[in-house]
């Protein structure tokens, strides 16, 4: 896949792996989301729909079912704190609150400068090493409240 290839071409390439191209709707939406700064604006559904011969409404209906697709703008970085049972038992709420303080944003919000989105998620599957925090799709485990300022500093100073 060359960097110069269009979203349309890349979606067609993925779709060719499946007996029916509609199966490629999740990978296509993921590609579109990556191309649009981490969320899916209305034109993304038109582009995905064009490539897979589906309506934009269909594509949006599928996207809205899944937690990893964002239908509204998000920050350049995403911090996700698991608050399901295993993590909650070992202090996930304290980790979440440490992020809220450090970022001056509530769970579900993006920082005022538009840089970092904070949210809680359901079980991420790192339960034995809680609290699990997923930073830009990479797992950090275990995270303690004391680790939070360092993670935020790293995101603020990074590219």
């Amino acid at each position, binding site marked *: 896949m060359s960097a110069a290839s269009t979203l349309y071409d890349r979606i067609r390439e993925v779709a060719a*792996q*499946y*007996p*029916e191209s*509609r*199966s*490629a*709707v*999740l*990978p296509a*939406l*993921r590609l579109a989301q990556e191309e649009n700064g981490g969320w899916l604006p209305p034109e993304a559904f038109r582009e995905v729909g064009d490539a*897979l011969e*589906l309506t934009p409404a269909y594509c949006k*209906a*599928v996207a809205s*079912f*899944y*937690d*990893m*697709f964002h239908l509204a703008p998000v920050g350049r970085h995403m911090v996700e704190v698991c*608050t*399901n*049972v*295993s993590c*909650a*038992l*070992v*202090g*996930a*709420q304290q980790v*979440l609150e440490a992020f809220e303080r450090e970022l001056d944003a*509530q*769970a*579900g*919000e993006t920082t005022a400068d538009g840089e970092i989105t904070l*949210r*809680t*998620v*359901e*079980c*991420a*599957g*790192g*339960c*034995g*090493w*809680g609290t699990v925090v*997923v930073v830009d*799709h*990479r*797992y950090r485990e275990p995270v303690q409240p004391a680790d939070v300022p360092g993670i935020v500093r790293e995101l603020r100073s990074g590219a």
Partner: protein
Amino acid sequence: MALRKLLLAHADERDLTKLAEYETVGGYESLRRALGMERQAVLDELLAADVRGRGGAGFPMGRKASFLPKPEDSSKRIYLVVNADESEPGTFKDREIMLRVPHLFLEGVFIAANTIGSNLAFIYLRGEYLREYEVVVAALEEAREAGYVGKDVLGSGWDLAVVVHRGAGAYICGEETGLLESLEGRRGQPRTKPPFPAISGLYASPTLINNVETLATVPKIVQMGGEAYARLGVEHSAGTRVFSLSGNVVNGGNYELELGTSLRELIYDLGGGIPDGRELKAIIPGGSSVPVLTAAEVDTPLDFDSMAAAGTMLGSGAVIVIDDRCCMVQLGLRVAQFYMHESCGKCTPCREGTRWMVQLLHKIEEGDATQGELDVLLDVCDRILGNCLCPLGDAAAMPVASYVARFREEYQRHIDEGGCPFGDESSLKGVLAPVDQHHARLRAEIEVPTGP
């Protein structure tokens, strides 16, 4: 009985993500052997091994595979679909298998695909598992270059293509028909059964769906023979399982054990017991969907029959340890919130019932519930049970009803004392669930007009 490394054998000493390393410990020899056997002979080994599904339902794998039509009798293409959408709360063992022994897992995929006569397999991999995706794709590429997958596998004349398909964050896609819907490019809403996937699954074609860990046992069964495998473990629970240990325990992590090992050995001998000098209060033995056990039941063996006799299930093998700081009403609330969040919305009892459970549990926790409302909670659970297309509704109702049954006195105290007897001291106090967060955001988005 205790630790018995079968799937995770050699993974501590060697980097088994590398094909060359995997081959030095006999890697892909089982595939070679299976390709030299009749398909039925491989299936017979799986049947003799009596290996039960490791995803949660525990259905015998060999029998499931035997429900598919023979390739020569099927007018339609036959598919193998791997359920790698691990998301039962407390479970993280498929992840460990994919990260540490990806070739063992893939070898199992290839053997299973050959056994059912499939030329196209899909691995539906949980979307959040990015690193696992990278490791599996890299291993698949190595296997392709070595001729273990692709055209004319090891000169056998059999072709196999494997597509790794990433999910996008939906617990329900771990349910097999929800997974198929999702893989076909739809919202992951489960289908009615029958028809079962073995007859009409992916693209309305015969489909075998197996969990990662189940498939990873296949090369071991081919290697040691089904009968020898069946001698591991206990009756009706053959073999080993990778148990995920989490919660209030010193050494959380994955432990591969022979089935029949007791919870006590896992929690105390291997897990190091309860930290901070606290007392064991409760154990969730098979992921958040299963009924709870009390501390008094810590000697229950980890096998299918013993768990059933104790009124619960082995489920996904996720053991969540709960100490005496935890309020069981808050636990019920947090578990119900999860299922409310993940309900696909198709069946009314699940869609409405999980929401109602959350509302009632909130009221009980806040001390605002009447005696009658505790009965309503149990009634709602009862009306969900058995009344939904897929197991998600039951998975919400069963554990919550069990918390009330086993810790009735604690629920009663919330009502009698008009609030939580733990005050601010419960470990789950104030935990923010994703459903709370969504609601807070929606409320913020609604602009309430104010008068002039």
